[in-house]
């Protein structure tokens, strides 16, 4: 029996690109409890909706997070369109889904790299990030930006992406897929990787449900909860969609889910590019269009990290009354502290990484 010690973890820590602070209550080398402290990245941008009009706010929404940037802009724009009763052309919906799935690939590759860095496989980290550049190149060719795309607007897309560019993107994805096989093989079958991931930080199905976990973190524990199954936007036009699930609930399962989601995303993009309609990309609402007082709408979107909830409420002027966002990471923090209980101190960075925390989303 030994004394309990508190080990502070973060906010500045080599494994974390973002600041989060954890008080790890440790007995010997085992973590008894982890108490998160957040707020280092809080900007208060939901309130900025009172100072930027509803068209401008798309660009603020995109800057909620630099990884799932496109998805946040989309979520806000989609919610505002529902509130205003705007119909957007099919092509704009298709383009949005294509860009969202590209974001998912880049987010998951980024995460696989960070995970490899977390368990000390430096060359795998660099290979994942090298592959990720393919997606950023596609973004740059089609939208102009590498990270912040600024191609969404309320009412559609700011400009069209022509078919030749889309086909070129698909060719690039073919190349990426070929190289990605090797990375997945190492990630899922290498003994040294498996010994770090298997059986670490297990969360079972019941716990995942009771802690309201979302995204690949929950799918790793067998929860088949995926907003894409609701068929919103162009997801409804897919021939077949089934969320990828694994039942083990440990770090390995979460890694496997994300690895396979990349294949799934590539398939979705190719299917949608093959049958994209040509009915324009929509136009911005005129200066007279204003949300009515108390008009409200919400939308649920599957981000790379899981379900995100967007809510907007108008007040009769061009400024909105309220914008509310519930992000996947804030849902998953409870699960993270649960997964941290009883693990070795050396495994803490790994478990924090496997929930794929996006602190700037969670704190806004």
């Amino acid at each position, binding site marked *: 029996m030994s004394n309990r010690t508190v080990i502070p973890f973060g906010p500045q820590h080599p494994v974390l690109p973002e600041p989060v602070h954890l008080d790890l209550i440790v007995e010997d080398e085992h973590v008894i409890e982890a108490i998160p402290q957040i707020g280092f990245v809080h900007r208060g941008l939901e309130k*900025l909706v009172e100072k930027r009009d509803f068209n401008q706010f798309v660009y603020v929404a995109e800057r909620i997070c630099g990884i799932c*940037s496109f998805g946040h802009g989309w979520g806000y724009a989609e919610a505002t369109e529902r509130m205003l009763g705007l119909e957007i052309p099919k092509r704009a919906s298709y383009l949005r889904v294509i860009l969202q799935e590209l974001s998912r690939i880049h987010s998951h590759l980024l995460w696989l790299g960070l995970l490899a860095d977390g368990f000390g496989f430096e060359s795998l980290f660099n290979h994942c990030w090298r592959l990720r550049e393919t997606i950023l190149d596609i973004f740059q060719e089609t939208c102009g930006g590498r*990270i912040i795309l600024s191609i969404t607007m309320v009412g559609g897309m700011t400009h069209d992406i022509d078919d030749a560019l889309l086909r070129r993107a698909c060719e690039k994805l073919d190349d990426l897929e070929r190289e990605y096989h090797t990375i997945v093989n190492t990630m899922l079958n290498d003994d040294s990787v498996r010994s770090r991931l298997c059986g670490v930080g297990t969360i079972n199905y019941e716990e995942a449900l009771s802690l309201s976990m979302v995204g690949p973190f929950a799918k790793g524990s067998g929860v088949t909860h995926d907003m894409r199954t609701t068929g919103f936007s162009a997801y409804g036009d897919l021939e077949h969609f089934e969320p990828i699930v694994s039942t083990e609930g440990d770090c390995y399962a979460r890694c496997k889910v994300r690895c396979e989601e990349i294949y799934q995303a590539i398939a979705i993009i190719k299917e949608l590019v093959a049958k994209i309609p040509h009915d324009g990309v929509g136009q911005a609402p005129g200066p007279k269009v204003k949300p009515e007082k108390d008009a409200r709408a919400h939308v649920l979107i599957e981000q790379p990290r899981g379900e995100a909830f967007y809510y907007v409420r108008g007040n009769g002027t061009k400024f909105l009354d309220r914008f509310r966002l519930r992000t996947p990471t804030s849902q998953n923090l409870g699960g993270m502290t649960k997964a941290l209980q009883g693990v070795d101190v050396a495994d803490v960075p790994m478990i924090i990484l496997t929930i794929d925390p996006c602190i700037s989303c969670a704190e806004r």
Partner: protein
Amino acid sequence: MGYSSKSPWLIHYDGSSCNGCDIEVLDALTPLYDIERFGIINTGNPKHADIFLVTGSVNHQNIGVVQHIYEQMLEPKVVVACGVCACTGGVFRDCYNVLGGVDKAIPVDVYAPGCAIRPESIIDAVLEGVKVLDAKADRMRRGLPAVDPETAPAVSGSEAGASAAVNLAAKEATN
């Protein structure tokens, strides 16, 4: 060129950034841009670092953390503000919890704008910072304080920033 500027070590801290600039800072370290070919190495330890890359603006919660990292770094040291939020507060400057650019907390030597900053600009900014590092090292060799008091970048603006400047000055005096 002095010894430290041939292989400057970086430390990176994310203020209240959206992640975009952080990812680009990491991106600059990975194969496509690979700033290690300039001898630049990323470290997690402030005492090992020569160049402090800050992304994102400062807020009430993290201003102390930024100052603490800066205080722990040894002279000569250089601060690079990466991205428009770190320079001025950017798109978030009107948010209630954003104090403004990093120069509200610590003196900044190089400002590198961009939203999100491109890895090329980061490389440029770091190499620009290396020149400042050289100049500081040179002054120290001549027995002068690392920062020329006449050309020192100001810590400006808010009360928090001003009091931070006073704290830093007092600390340096006692050292």
